[in-house]
């Protein structure tokens, strides 16, 4: 069964704007990861944040984690048309990893 739940389900913004996607989960985690999927095929790993971390950056990506609220957010700054994709969060607990249903991001040029 799925673990994380992304919000919103779909997001449409203009190029240059920031995009924020949220992920909520219900159980404990060791870490939480964000992935991107283009064209309904293979996923690409973006960033991993451990349960004892609160924020991580990678290029234009910023991920935050609030374990007290069991939530994470992915911020993409200065978005580009090429950022158009589906974004998934995945939670890891012990030897198990589960994905959410994803947020479909559309960046209009």
């Amino acid at each position, binding site marked *: 069964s799925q673990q994380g739940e992304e919000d919103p389900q779909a997001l449409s913004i203009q190029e240059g704007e920031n995009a924020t996607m949220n992920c909520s989960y219900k159980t404990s985690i060791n870490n939480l990861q964000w992935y991107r999927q283009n064209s309904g*095929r293979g996923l690409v790993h973006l960033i991993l944040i451990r349960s004892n971390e609160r924020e991580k950056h990678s290029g234009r990506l910023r991920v935050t984690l609030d374990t007290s609220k069991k939530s994470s957010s992915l911020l993409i700054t200065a978005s580009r048309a090429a950022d158009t994709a589906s974004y998934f969060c995945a939670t*890891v607990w012990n030897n198990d*990893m589960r994905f959410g249903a994803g947020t479909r991001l559309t960046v209009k040029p």
Partner: protein
Amino acid sequence: GAGVSQSPSNKVTEKGKDVELRCDPISGHTALYWYRQRLGQGLEFLIYFQGNSAPDKSGLPSDRFSAERTGESVSTLTIQRTQQEDSAVYLCASSLTSGSFSYEQYFGPGTRLTVT
């Protein structure tokens, strides 16, 4: 280096036929996952292999679905007596587990299964 590969990339089959999907993980990766993704939806976990441990089959939707893995190499997902609702993209991923904090998964391109 070589990533995760899957074959075939596309498969069209008639309802009631059996299909076998193959996944070649990255060499040395001990963990292997199968997921199903229906059109426009998220990933649905199917099964997980970790080394020589018994696989976690908790996500398999019915007894028509089964999977095998030979050691820490190739895995095959078999769907017997296919139904139209089995139509989806089947994704395989592998990861190198080194403790409980490093689970980046590497995904294959998927197999798009269409049951007519």
